[in-house]
């Protein structure tokens, strides 16, 4: 397992509502827990992944996600079992939709 941390400052979209979980920790899939948190306007993402050595790919996928959504005061935690970047992006969008009620 490998744990990766990401933090994006100065988001503009706050979350509304209780913590939500989307996805399932199955082969090629992941679960995303999203919840509001006081982070000075930042969005923090913690990834625990079974696929070791893909930090650069995660960085790119997370940067894209932040550019799409710009979440503020959001904590996202991921348990991953080898999902592809496309599946990760899809789940992140799904999670963000549940607590913003909107689209990117």
């Amino acid at each position, binding site marked *: *397992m490998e744990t990766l941390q990401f933090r994006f400052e100065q988001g503009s979209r706050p979350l509304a509502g209780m913590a939500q*979980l989307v996805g*399932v*920790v*199955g082969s090629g899939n992941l*679960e995303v*827990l999203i919840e509001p948190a006081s982070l000075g306007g930042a969005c923090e993402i913690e990834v*625990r992944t079974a696929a070791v050595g893909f930090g650069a790919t995660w960085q790119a996928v997370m940067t894209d996600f932040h550019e799409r959504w710009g979440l503020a005061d959001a904590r996202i935690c991921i*348990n*991953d079992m080898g999902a592809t970047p496309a599946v990760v992006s899809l789940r992140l969008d799904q999670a963000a939709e549940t607590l913003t009620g909107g689209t990117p």
Partner: protein
Amino acid sequence: MSSYLELTARQRIPAIFDPGSFEELLPPSARVVSPHLAQLDAPVSFDDGVVVGRGLLDGRVVFGAAQEGGFMGGAVGEVHGAKLVGMLRRAIDERAHAVLLLLESGGVRLHEANAGLIAVSEVMRAMLDARAADIPVVALVGGANGCFGGMGISARCANTVIMSEEGRLAMSGPEVIETANGVEEFDSRDRALVWRTTGGKHRYLLGDCQVLVPDDTAAFRAAAVQAIADIRAGSASLTLEGLLDEQAMLARRLLDTAGLADPVDVWRQLGVPDPGAVPMLEADAFMQLAAPYRAGGQR
């Protein structure tokens, strides 16, 4: 019609309980994850593969759980089992109208060895405690991973088991039987044989499940509401007389089916007309045809 099979555990809860009524206990945000999987450097899940809580079913307070077959085949680890047990005990404390278990599990999570085995035995005990407190316990089995091993036994500790044809219920799974006894005994790649043997129709005819429904969330929900009402009209608890009756049924069943290798032969022996046509029947047509021939008698 909305498939039950296709849904995740978290999607099944609002499809079965009254919309918006379910209040989860130990939700994912509590992050109570398996300490054993972390020690093995394996992926964990924030809910350890099970949703537990309390909601309304047809307006009554019913406790419930849904196992996530997608996470390690729904296998029961220490935390997963403790969540089920805690929910069942709370249902007793709060005098719940009933407990509804949406089961989908391969049984004990072998990574957790004894802790998982103990967890499953505690689940069985808690189910029987709930029944002893006269709280109906109803199990729904309709997920793609079936209900096997310790959870197969647990399902049969419920008052009523409701299945779809696609649902499967047994002790040892097909691969386990083939590994232990050889492909001549059971070919786990013969999918028609697997469903004939472990699927809902065979379980209904053998008396191991009480209701067969189409793979539809509304049908499962309606059957659960009806089952709870039926149980509450009598008593939910085990009785010596009931156990003796069941033991006699099992002994008779074993005698009646001795030497029969395929479920179709068993159905013929039970008197089912045109047993070869059974796998192709829709759930409602099957129930009409099969009810008089169940090994467990008509419900």
